[in-house]
């Protein structure tokens, strides 16, 4: 009888020890416990990317699409976007506009009505065409450049890049400081909405800063040979060639041809992917060409932020090389994600309020949307403009021009 009691006592002690050990270990070393896996998202949030994936502008569009995919990968790996008790997995749906605004409208309509998309990244020359449709359906868009888009009638259109006027203005301010003797500008522009938009934004800058707009040459989108255009411009005795309104491929050829014809002055290419441009022109001939943008080009790794480098490394891992890398659009999704999480709702009105209320993290720092004084609506993020010059076979940041706050407020 006593032995039975003893056996029960020993059994109880063993059981208590077995149960207690994991708790004891857990309390003793909490930092070594595996992190709980993020809860699986239960719902899906579709994100649309309406950009050129083929034809002119494709290099740019593909870069944007890939950046959005990288953002979606990060969000989903972290358990999705949290709204109350729900978690939303992000699905990215890309559509190829072929740089045709009519095609973009069809794509946007399908994204909204069939896929239930509430957030879109869109590129020129299709930005403007789809805005009425997006506004009617309260769909948010992150647009690149072309300021007429930002206006009170289109409250859901936001921009994280400075508009073309700011980029152009910053570039010419830098040029004036570095080369005050260069005043005669010749433009080579693609004859489409993108090119015309870029050119229209640059013209007031010439007048404001005292540059002489000597000549403009309009190249067809499918131009075969840029030699005649460059020859015609150089015949006018220009000091500077501005090819910011040309696509990367054409911009690269403009540089190549201008150098072959003996022009070694600055060639401005603020609207193109510098890597592709240099590949087409040849790095040697690209020497002295100037690029500028709302974010420093990711070729400048020495100046990159920690977050930018992180995205770059993820890009390399996923796509094998830095080909077409364009980190700007990572911010598009990231900012909308932050707005949703701050609003704790997918209600467009609440998200809109959040976008106008809070500061947002980007790859390049924390910013608040502004622009009411200029556009009548606070939908523009005001980053500085980075100026880069091809020097010694690489792209070097040579200046940062900050647009004065009074321009926006």
């Amino acid at each position: 009888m006593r032995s039975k009691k003893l056996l029960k006592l020993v059994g109880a002690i063993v059981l208590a020890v077995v149960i207690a050990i994991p708790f004891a270990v857990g309390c003793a070393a909490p930092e070594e416990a595996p992190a709980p896996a993020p809860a699986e998202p239960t719902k899906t949030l579709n994100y649309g990317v309406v950009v050129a994936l083929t034809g002119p502008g494709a290099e740019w569009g593909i870069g944007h699409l890939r950046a959005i995919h990288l953002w979606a990968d990060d969000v989903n790996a972290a358990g999705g976007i949290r709204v109350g008790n729900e978690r939303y997995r992000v699905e990215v749906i890309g559509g190829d506009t072929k740089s045709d605004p009519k095609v973009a409208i069809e794509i946007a309509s399908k994204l909204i009505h069939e896929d239930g998309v509430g957030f879109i990244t869109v590129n020129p020359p299709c930005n403007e065409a789809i805005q009425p449709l997006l506004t009617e359906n309260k769909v948010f868009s992150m647009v690149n450049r072309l300021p007429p888009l930002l206006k009170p009638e289109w409250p859901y259109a936001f921009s994280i890049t400075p508009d073309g006027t700011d980029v152009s203005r910053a570039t010419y301010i830098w040029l004036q400081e570095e080369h005050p003797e260069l005043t005669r500008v010749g433009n080579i522009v693609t004859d489409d909405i993108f090119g015309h938009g870029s050119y229209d934004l640059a013209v007031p800058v010439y007048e404001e800063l005292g540059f002489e707009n000597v000549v403009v040459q309009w190249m067809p989108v499918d131009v075969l040979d840029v030699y005649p255009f460059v020859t015609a411009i150089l015949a006018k005795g220009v000091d500077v060639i501005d090819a910011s309104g040309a696509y990367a491929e054409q911009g690269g050829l403009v540089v190549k041809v201008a150098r072959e014809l003996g022009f070694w002055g600055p060639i401005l290419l603020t609207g193109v992917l510098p890597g592709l441009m240099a590949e087409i022109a040849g790095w040697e001939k690209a020497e002295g060409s100037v690029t500028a943008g709302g974010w420093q080009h990711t070729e400048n790794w020495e100046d990159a932020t920690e977050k930018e480098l992180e995205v770059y490394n993820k890009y390399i891992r996923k796509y094998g090389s830095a080909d077409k890398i364009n980190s700007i659009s990572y911010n598009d999704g990231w900012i909308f994600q932050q707005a949703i999480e701050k609003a704790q709702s997918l209600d467009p009105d609440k998200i809109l309020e959040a976008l106008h209320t809070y500061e947002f993290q980007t790859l390049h720092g924390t910013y608040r949307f502004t622009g009411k004084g200029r556009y009548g609506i606070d939908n523009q993020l005001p980053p500085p403009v980075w100026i880069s010059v091809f020097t010694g076979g690489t792209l070097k940041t040579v200046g940062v021009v900050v647009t004065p706050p009074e321009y926006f407020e």
Partner: protein
Amino acid sequence: MEFWIQLVINSLVLGLTYVLVASGLSLVLGINRIINFAHGEFYMLGGFGVYWISIVFGANYFIALLITIIILGALGWVVQRGFYQRVQASLLRTVIVSIGLMLSIPALAQLAFGEKTRVVGTVIPGSVHLFGAPVTVERLAIILISILVMLGLWYVVQRTKFGLMMRVVAENREVAMLQGINVKNANSLSMFIGCGLAAAAGGVFAPLAWVSPFLGAGILFKAFIVVILGGIGTITGAAAAGLLLGFAEVMGVTFLGGWIDVIPFVIVLLVLLFRPTGLLGRVKEF
């Protein structure tokens, strides 16, 4: 003087590129009686051929160009035998097949080569001064190669048995058959030469621009203008019209600014107004 030399060189480069592409289109149109909408895609493939053989596999550019011309000429032969020959009795069917090829070849090229823009880059470095005007050796080489190819085409068509065979077929298919000429072979040969010419143009021009699966449509449009302008089925007419268009476009860009897209239509309208069969054409109906 330097400026005018540049204009002439620019006109010759552009014009001769049009000549190469349009001659092939005109040849196929005249002999096979096929409106080959896929012709521009052979131009695009010519660029890819040169890129892959010279850049990826490291072959000499000129060898790459020659291999590209032969391979794509052979592909033209296959297209004729495999597709057009089966539907050649019906103009409508050939048009449908032709449009199908025009749409599917770029899509296949995109799958095979990717959507990325490819760069052949400068293959003949250096430049010379002609009457003080800097001209790259590469552009002079393009002019020379194009002229040699066209002379070769003239020789084949005018001075060889194959050429005679093709000319008889172009003149009258029934008479050709009665003479014992193998019309199918003549058609295949003209497709070989026609597609080879488009490939030659694409390969010759690739170092000056870039290569992508979407280059075919633009050049096809210009080639059609040249064929209509020169006269259907006449290579001499295509040569004259191609050079005329090249000169007109370059002069237009230089002196009229942004009229480059309008110039071809104005020329076509003016020529057709006074010569409905084109500059050197004789075919009134097709």
